[in-house]
């Protein structure tokens, strides 16, 4: 049987159904699409884990050290004691304002008999109480005036 003459082959002898196959493969087949989707998902998940690595893991310790340092220095420089004697927060405010630039501080002084209501307080200028991480340290202040009194200085610190 002459198939060429019956239309099954063209002039070059190619079978017509092979030359223009109707079920030809797609560039992105369904399988490849699913595979790529799973791959992209895995990449995103792994990248999200990498992004969670915190390079500033010492931030909290830095904050605690800074708050401890400032409260120690203010105590040893008699700032807390003089502020209590003068019943004025101005001295504390002045010193806190000149502290490390990147950190906000708030100092409050309580009488040892009432730890709920501060008798003095100072918040560093240009700071608001907005933070993701806050540390708090306390020191006991002894004021020797006519009689010995005990106070507690509470210093809070957070990053600007």
């Amino acid at each position: 049987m002459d198939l060429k003459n019956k239309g099954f082959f063209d002039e070059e002898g190619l079978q017509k159904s092979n030359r223009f196959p109707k079920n030809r493969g797609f560039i992105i087949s369904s399988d490849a699409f699913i595979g790529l989707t799973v791959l992209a998902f895995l990449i995103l998940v792994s990248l999200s884990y990498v992004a969670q690595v915190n390079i500033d893991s010492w931030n909290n310790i830095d904050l605690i050290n800074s708050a401890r340092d400032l409260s120690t220095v203010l105590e040893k420089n008699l700032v807390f004691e003089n502020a209590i004697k003068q019943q004025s927060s101005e001295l504390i405010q002045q010193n806190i304002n000149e502290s490390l630039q990147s950190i906000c501080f708030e100092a409050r002084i309580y009488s040892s008999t009432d730890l709920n209501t501060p008798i003095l307080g100072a918040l560093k200028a240009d700071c608001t109480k907005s933070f993701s991480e806050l540390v708090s340290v306390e020191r006991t202040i002894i004021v020797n005036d006519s009689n010995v009194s005990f106070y507690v200085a509470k210093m809070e610190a957070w990053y600007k």
Partner: protein
Amino acid sequence: MNNKGQFFSPDLLIAISIFLVILGFFFYSSNSVFSQIDFFEIKKDADEVSHSTMNILVYSPGVPFNWEEKSLADTNLFGLALNRNVISQEKLVALITDLNNSYSQTKSKLGFGRYDFKLQLLDLNGSVLYTSYLDSNNTKLEIIYERTVLFNEQIAVLRGVVGLEK
């Protein structure tokens, strides 16, 4: 023989191209991630050494307590404190002199074997009162550690600058 299978069909070329692009992306991103992990490790180590050393400098008088009167070889541990957070001028000057004159030896005794270290004392206006010399041309990153201290009855800032070398 015209309909014989080809070694490189258009589909195969496209598939190989996509595969190579994905492979290239993986190599690029993995190199970036590895270099970031290396940097994290170095910074973590520098952080540990720096925090430990700065704590000792600010809290301890050193070992022996009068190390500033002794030679560098007789100094076991540097410390600058007369008492907690109160810095001795004599100890500070002695340490800065040691850093300027015998940098490598002093740096090693401080614990900064792999890293560069510069010590400064600043007043609250940011003016440098004392500083050691450090050639920062070879450092690619400087990490600053600041501690609030009392110096000559004035509040000051003790700054340690740790340099990660290129």
